[in-house]
């Protein structure tokens, strides 16, 4: 009988006064506050069924990042409510189109079995590791210091085909509540895989590989290799998926991988918006990459081809105020609707001169001084030095 869980013990409840419940909660709250830094975030935790405090070291980076326009930090902090995806448009729920993405893959991808198994197996492994099951052993000794580790990860990830690699802190306001408990470390390594140029060039008639699935599947194929590499150097880490739970655009801008594009996602100098991100969260204080101005906004303001070519009219011409920030809010319903009816649309990437013709070519169309930040700058002079009055 001792195995049976008793959910309602009436006698205990009588003993536990209202005051004692309050005291208990205050104690837990105090512990949670002491366990977190000043930049904490409080959110409803689905696993515990109570409010929970989390460390949020990325807040400082985001709030001070001039390339993310938060106009009212308090309003933004209060209203943050990140669901993974907006509600599906009617076309997605069409009875004639069950399992939309699977159908799409079978129709247009040459080797659809490889794509499906890679995505499936990798995703299952990510989920089980997030639950704490079957996590591979970490090498007992730390084989290199954090600075060396960062360089090693970068060169290893580059060798696997990730073109855009950066390190930043997680800002929990930009992750979905569903994964709050799965994000157990604060430092994130972003890994961007390029969608193939020649496939995108065939759009709007997708044939063989669809570009987005190419990006997703290769992220899936290689993210565990990066994670295993880090564990072999003696640091604990978890691979994360390519889905929308972590908002990679914002973290990418924080890590100086690019700037925001006209349609609100990250625009990298390597391959524009022709990129899909995945990530690894790591238990180490790696040196962080700071935000960089690539003058992409300057170029976009003089182009806006995506906005003018979007068949659904989902892309805004100007920024608008949205929950304490001024940002580009692409209308996801309109966009998804078009995606479902026209299969994989991505016309916004197809017309983008940076994505399709190259970043250098784009910047050369501006006056030459916009090329000052072409490489990650490391200023020799201390411009902040205070001089004598004279």
């Amino acid at each position, binding site marked *: 009988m001792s195995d049976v869980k008793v959910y309602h013990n009436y006698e205990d409840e009588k003993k536990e006064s209202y005051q004692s419940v309050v005291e208990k909660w205050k104690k837990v709250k105090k512990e949670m506050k002491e366990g977190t830094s000043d930049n904490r975030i409080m959110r409803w935790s689905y696993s515990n069924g109570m409010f929970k405090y989390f460390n949020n070291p990325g807040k400082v980076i985001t709030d001070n990042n001039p*390339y993310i326009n938060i106009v009212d930090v308090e309003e933004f902090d209060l209203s943050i409510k990140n669901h993974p995806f907006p509600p599906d448009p009617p076309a997605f729920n069409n009875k004639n189109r069950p399992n939309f993405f699977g159908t799409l893959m079978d129709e247009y991808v040459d080797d659809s079995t490889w794509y499906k198994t890679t995505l499936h197996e990798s995703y299952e492994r990510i989920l089980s590791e997030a639950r704490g099951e079957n996590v591979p052993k970490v090498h007992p000794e730390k084989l290199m210091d954090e600075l060396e580790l960062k360089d090693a990860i970068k060169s290893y990830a580059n060798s696997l085909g990730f073109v855009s690699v950066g390190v930043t802190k997680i800002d929990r306001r930009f992750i979905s509540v569903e994964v709050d408990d799965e994000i157990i470390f604060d430092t994130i390594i972003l890994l961007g895989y390029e969608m193939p140029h020649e496939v995108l060039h065939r759009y709007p008639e997708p044939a063989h590989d669809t570009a987005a699935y190419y990006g997703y599947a290769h992220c899936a194929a290689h993210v565990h290799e990066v994670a295993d590499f880090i564990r072999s150097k003696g640091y604990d880490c978890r691979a994360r998926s390519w889905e929308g739970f972590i908002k990679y655009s914002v973290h990418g801008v924080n890590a100086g991988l690019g700037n925001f594009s006209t349609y609100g996602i990250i625009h990298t100098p390597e391959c524009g918006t022709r990129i899909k991100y995945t990530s690894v969260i790591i238990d180490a204080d790696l040196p962080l990459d700071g935000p960089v101005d690539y003058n992409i906004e300057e170029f976009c303001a003089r182009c806006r*081809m995506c906005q003018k070519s979007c068949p659904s009219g989902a892309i805004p011409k100007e920024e608008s105020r949205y929950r304490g920030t001024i940002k580009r809010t692409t209308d996801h319903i309109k966009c998804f609707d078009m995606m479902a009816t026209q299969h994989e649309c991505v016309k916004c990437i197809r017309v983008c*001169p940076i994505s399709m013709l190259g970043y250098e070519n784009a910047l050369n169309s501006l*006056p030459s001084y916009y090329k000052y930040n072409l490489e990650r700058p490391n200023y020799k002079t201390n411009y902040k030095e205070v001089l004598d*009055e004279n």
Partner: protein
Amino acid sequence: MKINIIEKTTYTIDVNNSDTLLDIIKTCGLKAQLVQVGGPLGEFVKAYDLNKTIDEFDLLENNIMIINSFCPVDLSRFMSRFLIRELNIINQDMKRLNELLDHLTSGQYVDVDYFVSLLNRPYKTLGERLLVRNIKWLYSEYQQEFIAHQNGYCKASICRGLFKAQCINACPAHIHIPGFIALMKNKDYKSAYQLMRQENPLSSVCGSVCARPCEIKCRRGQITGTVGVRALQRFISSEALRSWQSDESLMDKNGYSVGIVGGGPAGLTAAYYLVRSGYDVTVYESHTEAGGMLASGVPKYRLPSYLIREEIDTIENLGVEIKRNFKVDRENYPNVLNAHDRLIIATGTPKGRLLNINHPNVISGIDFLKRLNDTSDYGRRILVVGGGDVALDCARTARRLNAEVTVISLETFDEMPASEEEKQQSIEEGITFKSGYAIDSVDNKHVKLKRCLQVLDEAKVFNPLYETCDDGLETVDTVIFAIGQERDLPFIDGEVNGYEYDDKVFMAGDVIKPTIVIDAIAQGKKVAGLVDKTLNKSGLNVGEPITIPERVLNIRTFDDDLKEVSTLPIKERLLSFDQVNLNYSEEDAAYEAERCMRCDRNSTVSLLLGR
């Protein structure tokens, strides 16, 4: 020491402290209007000041930036944004300075005194001081540009807050180019033509001879290849004029009368807008055919007479009286002046400049082109002096008269001011170029040449340097001078200085300063507006506003290259005066129209600072 030279590509080269900037730039094969030494806040050096050596500079970073075709206001704005966003130096003064520069680049009012006072405050950090030093320097060197921005004009077509699209800004008449291309895509040729006609009543003419300032600043051209705006303009005009039935609105007659001396592009444009706004307009044209330089100065193989006549007819049919063969001179000028409430003088520059050389057959280029209908004999060997469009017009015309033609110019072939298209077609037609020469002496039809080493000196002032050489030309029958033209105003005593001569007399077009056709047209409209302001004050009537369609753009915009207009075969060209450039076919025009990026639909709001 290693230094990065940044232009279109970045060159990393080894330099010594004693190297001058000019040496360094020349080793990379570059040219520069402005050079910035030492990173984003480094010192600026103008092109004529490049003899400074590297050790004279404080190298904050190991960068030398080569800056060509730039806007000083935008450069200042870039630096202030750089300071705030990248270097993280934020204070109220810097923010205010950035805000003022932002206002300048987006056409908002700026208090100049406050701007200057901000620049003269004492600043603490190195970054701020360098920024203020640089902006001060730019403000003193390019003050004209800053003033132009106050009035809402950016010469370099960079500050996008001041205009709808770069091509519209670059066109002196500000024709809505993306608009007429969009209308044309809908096969609405009449509306497209009417949209052009709101700014330019001689669109068909411009479609053949325009110097195309718009195509140089085409945004798509800066990324891959320009859109063929002129060819599209010609196609639309010819389609619209084929079945032209004027339904252009005229305002009620207001009783005022305006006289226009000279029936060239400027005069006809002014006449068109004034007659639509209810004025009685009389044009005094000294030749038998109206059109000014377009009729007499531009050869027929570039602009056939029927094209000019077609559009002049549309203007004449609106009620403009054109008095042909009426030369205004000292005697009848008072009568002409008294017959009208206002007089616009747009007589252009009909007198060709000549050099004094010892040769029996010397003629100015403009006279040569005018007298083509005479049966005068110019001989087999013709020498044209000059490197501009008129010189090449003369050369190609002479070639069609079956002569052997040599063109000499002071400039090298690449630096000749004539358009690339003209140069290319001249070579195709077998014209010999001796670029970088001038006439030394003429002895019994034998022309001895001298080499020209430099045309402009370091401060960009005309100051040619010569060197004797053995080159020469045997038996030249005729020498044609196309080295510039002068105005011919015997009936005016005062100085010509801008649009307003006095209360009653206005000026427009080449007569003020020689310029291109489309600029003369723009001036014609401007002066018509000025005249209206002094008389009826109703504003010019340019017709009903035209709605420009906003359709989803073609996804393949960046894949397709420019469809060049086809030209006549060279053999056929030399036998007649038929137009060399052919018109687009309907498919070609539709293809070309798809290539337009529709920059007029872009945002003009300035970027956020983000702090």
